[in-house]
């Protein structure tokens, strides 16, 4: 099956710093989503981005499908950004998740 590798596995930032999270995948995909898992365990949809670039406030994402990677940018990080960020990829149906990047933003 498809392999999904996320980096870095852990990241510690000071509030206000910027960061880039990476997702590499091993095969062509029709679906790529970024999620934020909050401390209560909920998976919050951030982006549906099988290709191209999208922005939502302080967050933006870029997927280069031909090179099989996606990047999630977080600017001016806040303590509420802490949690685990998952990349998930797939065809038209099921998703395969990466192991996630655990982000801790300290005040």
């Amino acid at each position, binding site marked *: 099956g498809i392999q999904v590798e996320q980096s870095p596995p852990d990241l510690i930032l000071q509030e206000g710093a910027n960061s880039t999270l990476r997702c590499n995948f091993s095969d062509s995909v*029709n*679906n790529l*989503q970024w*999620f934020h898992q909050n401390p*209560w*365990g*909920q*998976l919050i*949809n951030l982006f*549906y981005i099988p290709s191209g670039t999208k922005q939502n406030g302080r967050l933006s994402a870029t997927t280069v499908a031909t090179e099989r990677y996606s990047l999630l940018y977080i600017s001016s990080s806040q303590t509420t950004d802490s949690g685990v960020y*998952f990349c*998930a990829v797939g065809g*038209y*149906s*099921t*998703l*395969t*998740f*990466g*192991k*996630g990047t655990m982000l801790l933003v300290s005040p």
Partner: protein
Amino acid sequence: EPEVTQTPSHQVTQMGQEVILRCVPISNHLYFYWYRQILGQKVEFLVSFYNNEISEKSEIFDDQFSVERPDGSNFTLKIRSTKLEDSAMYFCASKIQGTEAFFGQGTRLTVV
């Protein structure tokens, strides 16, 4: 904004007991899924359901698991005889074909 709703949020059960996890997908969605996440690990696919039948299932989804859409709104996951290793967060998701999947808030199952 429409959302996927799961109940209960937390369930504690004795080993060997049957549990039913419930989900109400987004109303116009046609594809339904169950995923699980063992504590500290990644989210894993269990089963997908379309047109009142299972369309795909993983190796995890063995004979102790079953899914059902008993009416027009609910989607359930049954675990017949729970084991300690079934303790996990179970997520329901739904989607329209070719779009993003939306996940519920999860049911945390603890088997004791």
